[in-house]
């Protein structure tokens, strides 16, 4: 039984595309057949983050409009044969997508893949509503910061009202992925804690991804972080999240504080 999962947030720049690529790769590494679909028509970036920017020939809009067949537009990852990408168009805008067209493509993808991950554009306009429209599961990517939490709350409201599943009287499975978290700053009261965000948004926690240079390095190189550096804390957080999505009980690791200059200085002194 295939699952359609939207990765969404409302706010831009919180880590939707990075997380779509990393979760997609982690699920594929676990043996699942995965396609990651870029819904950000006009501003595609998933191809770049996944290192396939030079292999794009046809895209989602071409398939929706019948100008290309689905297999012509799918790009299989060179490192993981169970991972594929369906890129967005860079030259069109979001009005090129129609609900019927997207529904047909999703149905066709359901026949080929176990997981269809829809990387939503920012905002609450057509691109974002179409990305979530046919989802069974939603990953809400949130930074521990007021504007991101507010936008996530708005998106959660839309997931519960504007999706096909919600309209059919079903319950949308929603998960919170807290990204760019800094445990040391949270401990000092400078950043909202995991519990604060969970209490406000009231959806279950899928994982905590710390602010880390590994994530930037991975996107610089065009490789999902779970492939590029599987031992890094960010990759482990995404791998654990993917196991939770597969129904395993995995305890959320408490985020380790990155030690600042002062604590390293004093820590070394204490050890000497």
């Amino acid at each position, binding site marked *: 039984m295939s699952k359609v999962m939207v990765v969404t947030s409302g706010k831009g720049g919180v880590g939707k595309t990075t997380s779509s690529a990393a979760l997609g790769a982690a699920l594929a590494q676990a043996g699942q057949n995965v396609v990651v679909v870029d819904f950000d028509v006009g501003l595609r970036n998933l191809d770049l983050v996944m290192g396939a920017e030079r292999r794009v020939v046809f895209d989602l809009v071409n398939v929706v409009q019948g100008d290309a067949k689905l297999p012509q537009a799918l790009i299989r990852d060179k490192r993981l044969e169970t991972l594929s990408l369906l890129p967005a168009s860079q030259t069109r805008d979001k009005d090129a997508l129609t609900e019927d067209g997207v529904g047909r493509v999703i149905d066709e993808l359901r026949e080929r893949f176990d997981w269809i991950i829809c990387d939503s554009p920012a905002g609450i306009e057509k691109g974002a509503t179409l990305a979530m429209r046919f989802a069974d599961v939603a990953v809400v990517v949130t930074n521990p*910061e*007021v504007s991101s*939490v*507010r936008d996530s*709350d*708005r998106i959660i*409201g839309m997931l*519960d009202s504007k999706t096909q599943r919600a309209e059919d009287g079903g319950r949308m499975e929603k998960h919170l992925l807290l990204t760019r978290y800094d445990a040391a700053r*949270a401990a*000092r*009261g*400078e*950043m*909202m*804690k995991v519990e*604060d965000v969970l*209490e*406000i948004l*009231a959806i279950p926690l899928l994982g905590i991804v710390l602010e880390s240079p590994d994530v930037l390095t991975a996107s610089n190189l065009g490789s999902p972080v779970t492939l590029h550096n599987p031992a890094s804390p960010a990759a482990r957080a995404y791998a654990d999240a993917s196991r939770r999505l597969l129904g395993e009980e995995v305890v959320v690791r408490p985020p380790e504080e990155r030690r600042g200059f002062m604590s390293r200085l004093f820590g070394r002194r204490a050890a000497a």
Partner: protein
Amino acid sequence: MSILGFFNRKRSAPVARDRLQVLLAHERALSGRTDLAAVLREEILAVIARHIPIDGDKVVVRLDRSDQVSTLEIDIEMPEDVLAAG
């Protein structure tokens, strides 16, 4: 920056949390997502406003939500002259 400012500067996260809780309770009510605590807050404030003028800055509202119990805490500072006039 004063010494007090130096120490206060760091604890901005609880402020963020409280501001969000109040704001989102309001926005959820507007979008029709039922939030009993938010409805109670609005109605309690309306009742108090009938009797004494409330200064917005002197009202502290906290919503705490958990699985079993949610609490609504309203802290209203009432100046002496308002009480005397009432």
